[in-house]
């Protein structure tokens, strides 16, 4: 488990991270969401031991990570712009990482290269941005880390590749117990992969919740009530987070389980009723509006 407690980080006069506390549990895929400049990369760089927090503590399996080889052995950081040796090839990178990690998955490395159709002898400098991201992910996975920290790693990957990477993640989690931590500014990208999501804003954690829990506990309903009186009666019963009305059509965001909502509407007199799945973005908008933030601005800028 990675535990981040009350960390602060300033760059000169700029507050990059302000009192962030978050826990990354093993076996989960953690999505770290935030706008550009929210502090996602800084948090990941501190967790990977690149940066030292000005205050607060970061522990990886109860070991402080900064300047600690034992802790760093369990973490692999894939930055937003991964570095490869100038004029180096995928083969060169494998040799380098193999010299550092004794049990580097060399066979798996070349297998993945083949799977992703990356030429091991081609200079990395000639790779596209997406190919470089793929290679970085392969390098990271084959180092067999316990925690794989990915900073904007899925940006630039085409949907097919993204799906491929996700399936590799799933396999590694299942087989080797890898815990990915994925930072992104794009909620949609993380929706189908993350188990837990943390929202960073202005250097602080705005929200950190289990995705399933969030999804199960909030529903979206579109309905037309038979009368205004019926509408008033039902709306009083439900925990309405948001109610948008266009003509007679109500679009409701309602807190509660699917079963509870269905039960309430079964007893209601409606002309039209439909229970919809909320996107991660919508859940976030709802949840954060509750605590007083205009999340549309936070997410879309």
């Amino acid at each position, binding site marked *: 488990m990675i535990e981040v407690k009350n960390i602060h980080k300033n760059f000169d006069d700029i507050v990059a991270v302000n009192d962030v506390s978050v826990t990354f549990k093993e076996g989960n895929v953690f999505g770290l969401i935030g706008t550009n400049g929210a502090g996602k990369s800084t948090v990941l760089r501190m967790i990977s*031991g690149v*940066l030292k927090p000005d205050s607060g503590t970061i522990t990886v399996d109860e070991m402080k990570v900064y300047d600690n*080889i034992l802790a760093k052995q369990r*973490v692999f950081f894939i930055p937003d712009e*991964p570095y490869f040796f100038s004029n*180096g090839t995928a083969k060169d990178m494998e040799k380098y990482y193999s010299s550092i990690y004794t*049990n580097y998955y060399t066979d798996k490395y070349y297998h993945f290269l083949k799977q992703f159709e990356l030429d091991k002898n081609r200079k990395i400098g000639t790779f596209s941005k997406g190919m470089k991201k793929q290679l970085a992910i392969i390098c990271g996975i084959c*180092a067999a880390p316990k925690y794989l920290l990915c900073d904007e790693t899925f940006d630039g990957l085409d949907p097919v590749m993204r799906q491929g990477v996700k399936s590799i993640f799933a396999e590694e989690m299942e087989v080797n117990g890898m815990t990915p931590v994925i930072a992104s500014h794009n909620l949609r990208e993380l929706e189908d992969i993350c188990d837990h999501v943390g929202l960073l804003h202005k250097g602080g954690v705005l929200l950190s919740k289990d995705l399933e829990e969030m999804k199960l506990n909030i529903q979206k309903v579109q309905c037309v009530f038979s009368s205004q009186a019926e509408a008033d009666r039902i709306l009083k019963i439900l925990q309405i987070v948001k109610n948008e009305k266009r003509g007679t059509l109500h679009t409701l965001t309602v807190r509660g389980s699917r079963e509870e909502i269905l039960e309430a509407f079964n007893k209601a007199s409606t002309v039209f009723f439909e229970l919809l799945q909320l996107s991660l973005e919508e859940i976030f908008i709802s949840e954060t509006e509750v605590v007083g933030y205009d999340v549309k601005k936070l997410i879309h800028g």
Partner: protein
Amino acid sequence: MMLKNSFTASMKENSKRRIWVFAISCLVLFFYLPVILALRLNDYSQQVALGNMKIELLYEVFADSVGFSLQTLVVTVVFAVFIGIQGFSYLFHRKKMDMYASLPVSRTKRFLVIFIVGYLFFAIPYGVSLLMSYGIGMAFGVVGTSALCITLLSYVFHCIFFLAVYAIAIIAAMLTGNTLIATLAAGILLIYEIAARIIVNGYAQQFFDRYYYFSQKAILKCLVSPVGIYYFFTEAMTESNLILLKTYGTSLGSLFLHMTILSLLFCIIAVFLNCIRPYEACGRAISFAKTKGLIKIMIVIPVSLGGGLLFYSIAGSSDGFAILGICLGLVISACMIQIIYDFDFRSIIKRKRHIAYAGGITAIIYIIFYFDFLAYDSYVPKSEQVESAAVYISSGMGYPSYTDNEFEYISPDEYILENMYLEDVDTICKIAADSTKTTDENNEPNCIVKYRMKNGKDIYRSFFVADQDIELLDGIYKSKEYKETVYQIYNHEAFYDELALKTYYSNGGIREELTVDESVNLVKLYKQELMYLNYSNIKKELPKGYISFTYDDGMGKSFEWEYPVYSFMSESVNYLKKIEVYHENYFETEDIVSIEVMNYGDDGTYQTETYTEPEQINEIIKYAYSDTISRYSTTEDNINYSCVLYINVDPIKLSFNNYYYLYFQTDNYPEFINTDFNFDVEKTVSSINGDIEVGSVNNKIYKN
């Protein structure tokens, strides 16, 4: 996950990625050492084969190429800075830092891997190049212990020197976050002490009347600058400058040890900085934010002082311009550094308090020198604190020359101040104390004193002897310690090798050679009379001639001494007369066709008169002094150098067909010269429209 512990595997991996650096190192050193040596030796060996040069010269060429020189210093420094900064350039790039810093490799291990690989990138090609050079030397016949020793010494010393500069370059990389600024910082760290010493020396020269320093070499005797130590070591490697080492109480071994300790110290500092350097420093100008102000002030102060000194000396010791120079240096350097810090021209006026701090410190330093708050000029040690002293008085000495037993030239001040041990320190302290009470700068002579203090320190002062102390000075002159140091005729081994020593007597015009027996007899008489020579004697009159001793053992050791003969050295003069080598006049009157007297005015004009009458020529010659005699004058005022006598001799009668020039003593001219040139009334010089006349005169002077 497990880590490979193999340090060598990491080194191998690092060297693979930096192989291009190794290739450059090999290529440059290959051309710099064996290739150039082969070309030079081939050229010189051809000259040796033709008999134009001695074969010993080949060794000198070899030693020059593989040994110590300014070129090798530059090559080593460039490589050390280049390899050092290249190796740690990952510190300047965030992408690289994200990768390297997140890897499970300790900082120290990563540092040592890069450090050792970089060091070997110089040490291996350099060693191989030296080996090849030695092989080439052997092929050209330069063999022997000396060649091997110089090769080995050169390798070991240059490797240590490289280590010191390399560590400094790494320190610069650790202190900064950008390649360009790291290179600048390395340069500043390398020259900071030298620059500071030069500036302090410059201020001391400008503001202290009694300041004395040996030479630029002595200024470069640095404490922490490896470049300064290398330069000093190189200079001292030559036999002639071994005295420089003695003077500063050091030796080649001490310098070697000094460099080694410095190298290790810099390495430790580099390791320490590596451990504490924040990774986020990449891209910044300075890694440690808290040091920004201090570094800025430390750079701005010497730049401001240097600016002040430059303006002060260019503007003819103008205090106003000195202050202007300081202000310009202060503001410009502070603004430039701030721009570099922020990578933003708009930051030019930020942190004005740094300018205030640096300006304040600069002003304090300037005032300390200006008003001599260190009491440098008034300092005279208590005689009981002084072990012994040495005194060098240049006036009246002509152009003395000194050598050691290797027959290498040593400058008079270095030789005398190193070798003279006067026990009468009371007298010297009294003369020094009296000199502080007089403000008359026209006092003569100027005297340089070295006090050897009982606490082991050496203190130097230069001052003019007060008139009332000339008698005291005469006492020092007459002392055995003084004479035996100043006149090598008393103790140098060359004067006992009568067969290799040739003796001549010259009155400044006519030169006669003495036989071995004559020489032995003359030296015996001269040494006795020389003991009685004092400053008052030589101030009164110019010598009648001088004895030249030319030593040449035929094996490459040669040297020449000149000693003046005064009229009061009656026994020596009588002996010279007896053996018929003494001549009153420089020329026989009948050998002179004409004498052209040319008197230059202060304003660039001149008056010229030509005398052809034998009576006038005879009279002029009686009053005239040759340059070789007039240089024994205790003051320049004794000789009227603005009045030149061009002697046109008869080419048939004399072996040389040339103009010869002589001078008059000030206020001592033939009567008709006084009249013709109005010397006794007032120096009036006729104005002549210069260009054509000067051209014609110049033609006359330099025609032959």
